[in-house]
Each structure stands twice: as structure tokens, then as C-alpha cells.
């Protein structure tokens, strides 16, 4: 069987993934601001209106509450909507719909309904969009049971996780990192490439330390791993890919060998997935660790605009290298 692959970038694969999901299930519809005729504010959804028509691919008003609430109402009555919130920061505009409505609808109905919907959002810093258009917003939703949270960091993962997210009977928040839009990768043509939610990717293996990082930071971690290898330190890099459910098992398994944990995240430490992961490991699996775990995170400030300031705000490859070395020498 010949395996044909298409080389695409992260931005291009968004529409490929949505199209694949829409082709396999006529109940899947897609709507959001400027997503249809204009092909998306980030040009990540061109061609969908042309292929699937105006009933299944719809432009909405600038009405985030209506977008999410309409997706919810349609999800509990027979459709499987994909809704787009242009920037993840705008989740603040429809926070009630996501947190009080979408997340709790099945629970409050005692299982009378399922909520098969996906909310896609452009996420993260590094592109100079300023404090209201750059936040890694995934952390806002961590302590809201009922949501799944997906943060793809590669072309392959974006495609495969999108297929899973749309097929899932639960609400999925799907964060696409806008600073990865030009990242290249390959997807299989004409065959399923589903990647299950809750399964981490082992990016690299090494015996000296475990680095857990997602989205942009996964790539920083991979760079750091190369530098560390040149210094004789071999690290494992794990990309959790989904934050809820989280693949604790992959991390614990790696720690059995490395005994050192560095978590790298593009968000301030407070109330974050990295802090939660470290808390779980320390409270439940302290015996695995030979050194205190470290969290390499962004600073506790809004995301600054100026290039040099934003670069300082973000964790750097250097920060990761230094932190791993510190743990090795602990």
C-alpha cells in the first residue's frame, strides 16, 4: 500500500482537517466570524464554503455568545457543529456560554443530552498582537469539568486531533497556535489519521531528564534538547497534545527512567496546566523524583507588545537548557 502524503503548513491543514470531518459526516457544520466568504481572518478556512455550501459553512455576526450558544443548541439537537472564535482571547466575551452552559449541559441534564461540538480558537503569543490577542487562553478552562482541551503543536497533530475532536461526543476547545501557522508537515491523503485525545506524543527520548511542553514550547524544548545533547545530556521531550484529558501515564513512565521533570509552558505559572501537572507528580509520585520539578513559564504580566519585551515574556530555549542543567546538577 503506497502511502501518499501532502506537505502543508499548519495554517493550511486547518481547512483540510475541517473538510475531512465535514465529508465524513453531514451533521458537521462550521460557522464563525468571516470564516466562509473571506476564508477566515487568518486565511485558515478557504474553500470550505465553496465545497460545502452556505448551509453548512456560515459567516456569523461578531457575536461570540451567539456563536457558542448556537453551537451548543444545535449540538444537543442533532448537529455536530464546529464554531470558530477568532482569537482565543475572545473566549472572554463568551465565557458564560463556554463555562456555565457548554461545560455543564450534559451534567445538568443527567445525561439526557450529548454535546458534540468543537470550538476552534487562535491562541498564543509571539506574533506581536498585544495583550488582548496573544494570550495562551487554554489555562482559563482547566478547572471547569466537562470540557476537553486540545493544543496541537504540529501539522500532523492538528489534523489528527481535529478528526478526533469532531468525532468526540463531548465539547472540545481546540486551540490553534497562530505563531505556528507557517510550520510545515505532512498529512496522509485519503486515509484516516486520527490521533486520540488524551495521548501524548514522545518527541524525543533520553535518560537524563523529562521535558513536557506543548504547542510553541514543544519546538523550543526540541531545540533545547539538541543543545543539551551537544553537552552530553540526553532528555526526553513529551508533548501532551491534549490538556484535558492529560496523559499523566506517559509522563510518569518517562520519569521512572529520568527522575527529573521540567515543564515548559507559554503562560504564567498561576493556575496553569504546568503547575497542575507538577502538583500531581509531587503529591502522588514524589518517589520518582531525584530533584525538585521545575516550571519554565511566561512572566506574570499581560503579554507585552514590543518585540524585545514579548521575547522576554516568553520562555526561551536558553531558559530550558539552564533549567535542565540545574536539575541535573541538583
Amino acid at each position, binding site marked *: 500500500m503506497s502511502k501518499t502524503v501532502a506537505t502543508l503548513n499548519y495554517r493550511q491543514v486547518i481547512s483540510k482537517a475541517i473538510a475531512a470531518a465535514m465529508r465524513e459526516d453531514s451533521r458537521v*457544520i462550521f460557522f464563525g466570524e468571516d470564516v466562509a466568504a473571506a476564508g477566515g481572518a487568518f486565511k485558515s478556512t478557504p474553500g470550505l464554503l465553496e465545497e460545502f455550501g452556505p*448551509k*453548512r459553512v*456560515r459567516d*456569523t*455576526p461578531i*457575536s461570540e*455568545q*451567539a*456563536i*457558542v*450558544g*448556537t*453551537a*451548543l*443548541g*444545535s*449540538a*444537543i*439537537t*442533532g*448537529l455536530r*457543529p464546529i464554531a470558530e472564535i477568532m482569537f482565543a482571547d475572545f473566549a472572554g466575551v463568551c465565557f*458564560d*456560554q463556554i463555562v*456555565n*452552559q457548554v461545560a455543564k*449541559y*450534559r*451534567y*445538568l*441534564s*443527567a*445525561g*439526557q*443530552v*450529548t*454535546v*458534540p461540538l468543537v470550538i476552534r480558537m487562535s491562541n498564543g503569543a509571539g506574533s506581536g498582537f498585544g495583550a488582548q490577542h496573544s494570550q495562551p487562553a487554554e489555562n482559563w478552562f482547566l478547572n471547569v*469539568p*466537562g470540557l*476537553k482541551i486540545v493544543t496541537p503543536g504540529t501539522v500532523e497533530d492538528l489534523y489528527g486531533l481535529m478528526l478526533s475532536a469532531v468525532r468526540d*461526543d*463531548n465539547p472540545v476547545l481546540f486551540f490553534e497556535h497562530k505563531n505556528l501557522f507557517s510550520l510545515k508537515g505532512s498529512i496522509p491523503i485519503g486515509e484516516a489519521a486520527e490521533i486520540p485525545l488524551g495521548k501524548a506524543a514522545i518527541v524525543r527520548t533520553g535518560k537524563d531528564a523529562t521535558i513536557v511542553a506543548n504547542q510553541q514550547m514543544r519546538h523550543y524544548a526540541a531545540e533545547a534538547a539538541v543543545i543539551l545533547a551537544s553537552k552530553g545530556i540526553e532528555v526526553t521531550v513529551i508533548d501532551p497534545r491534549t490538556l484535558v484529558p492529560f496523559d499523566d501515564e506517559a509522563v510518569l513512565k518517562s520519569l521512572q527512567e529520568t527522575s527529573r521533570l521540567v515543564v515548559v509552558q507559554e503562560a504564567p505559572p498561576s493556575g496553569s496546566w504546568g503547575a497542575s501537572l507538577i502538583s500531581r507528580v509531587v503529591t502522588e509520585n514524589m518517589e520518582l523524583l531525584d530533584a525538585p520539578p521545575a516550571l519554565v513559564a511566561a512572566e506574570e504580566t499581560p503579554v507585552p507588545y514590543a518585540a524585545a519585551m514579548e521575547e522576554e515574556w516568553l520562555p526561551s530555549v536558553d531558559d530550558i537548557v539552564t533549567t535542565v542543567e540545574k536539575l541535573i546538577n541538583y
Partner: protein
Amino acid sequence: MNDDYCKMLSLTEGAPADAEELLASMLSIRLFEDEVVSLFAKNLVRGSTHLCQGQEAITVGIAGALVPGDTMTCTYRGHGATLAHGSAPARAFAEILGRSGGLSHGRGGSMHFTDMANGILGSNGIVGAHLPITVGAALSASHLGTGAVSVAYFGDGASNIGAFHESLNLASVWKLPAIFVLENNQYGEYSAQAVTTPIRRLADRAAAYGMPGVFVDGNDVVTMREIGREAVARARAGEGPTLIEADTYRHSGHSRSDPGAYRPKEEVALWLGRDPITRLEQAILRNNPEASVNIEAIRQRVQKEINEARDLALSWPEPPVEQRFEDIYA
């Protein structure tokens, strides 16, 4: 009575053939709510409740214009709407009492009634949050071609929240089969409409969304049903949504803790004189002075049914505590 309702009061022209059924439905809600008051006094109800005595004609009238397959959402003042749309009183009581036989097995409480078998998509604890969900149900109906209409009941207070604007705008621009029923009980929680809202006729807001706005006597069940039928016909014909402002009054305060002391005595007396149940009874008696026997028999029958429903609900056990982990995810 106000002389500017959209139609002359049809009740003044006599009662319809099925007046006694309408009376029984309204009485069922009234006596249910009265019983909730006494359950509360016995300390059998947790948190709060929001009762709808005085507003029964709206939901009974609208429900009478619908058919199975149509859907409904409502507010936390939603016991009446849920009963009008077909839920069993025993299961409603049990939800308020936190018993296993409740609509959501006691996981929701007074503000969260869902009964999908009767098209009841859920009452909602957040003002206005169910309006976009209603739009979503209408989108499903439109997309799947089911012919169903999607009704939302909400208060005058909700017409000042952003989700109202977003929902009516989106439903209208997509010409969805939705009916927005504004129960104007004159007070948004503790505040009179004039304090919070610069216009008197909230139906006028429909003009901003390019849909018909109808102001109607909400204490006239026959008129409510007639207006409901017109809106349903319009929705089913693909002509889009309607906003119905139903003028009414909340006999009690906002919630359990509110005696409603801020309301002038004369105003309360005026509205008690417009009680929708008394008015229907008077119309029945005008048609047939001998019917007082029937009315008394209906009262006794409904009271017996409500008592039996209450006793049945009280006979059910509390839900097993393990069930709190169920239905968070599908």
C-alpha cells in the same frame, strides 16, 4: 385593562371549547408552585426557588400552539413552563427536592429542569443565556428540515443582556424558526422596568432585528395561544422569528428570600385582579353559569394530582452520592 394590547382580549368574548383543559393546565402550575412554597417552609428545599404564580397563561397558551418535536428553553423561573410543556409534576417536585426520581436525578435543582422527551432543552440559571441555545435548536430544525420550532421564554430583565441582542439578531439574519417569548412581569429581579429600561414596550425592540414584535396580554391564555399560533405558522413557513412581549405579573417576589415589598400595594392589587386563572374561570362562567360545579371539580382533581405527585416525589430516595461523577463526559 390596558387598552393598547395588540388584540382585544379574546377572553372577553367568551371561553373556547377546551377552556376547562386550559384551566386545568394553569391550575396545575399554580398549585404546584403553592406546594413548593410549603415544601420550602418545611425546609425540604435547598438553595432558592423562583416561582411563577400569576404568569401561567403565557406558557400554557404558547405550549397549546406547539406540537411534539418542537423545543423549548426557559429561565430559572421555569417550573411552570416545564409543566406546561409536558413534564410530570412528580419528577419536577423530585428535582426540587433533590431526589433520585427528579428530571435530572437531583443533580440540577429548581433552576435546572431538562426533559428532552418533551422537547424541554433546559431551564437556565443565567439570565438570557438560553437565548443563543434556542437559536441553535432552531438552526438544527432548519438544517435538518424537521419543521420544528424553537421557543425561548425569558423575562423583561433578560432583554437588557447582550445575549438577547446577539440571539435575536442572529436568528433573524438566518431566518430561523425561533419564537422569543418575553414574559414581562414588570420587574427584573428587584428592580422595576422603568428604573432599568428607557422604553416601555419591549416588543418595540423587535424592529431593531427586522422581526415582528407583538405586545400581548399575557394573562389571557386564549390570546396567548392565538398569538403563539401566528408566530409558529410564520416560523414553520420559513419566514423567521417573532418576538412576543407578554404583559404579566409575578404574584410573589423574585425568589424565596424576596417578599417583594418594593411593589406598591395598589399595583399588586391591580394585578391580582387580573389573575389569569380567575379571568379564565369568569369567561367559562359567562358562557355557562352552571359551570361553577365543573370548575370546582377541576380544582379538586388538580389539587389531588399535585398532592399525589408531591407524595410520590417525597417517597423517592435521595440519589446515590456516587452519581455525582456521572455524565460529566459522554
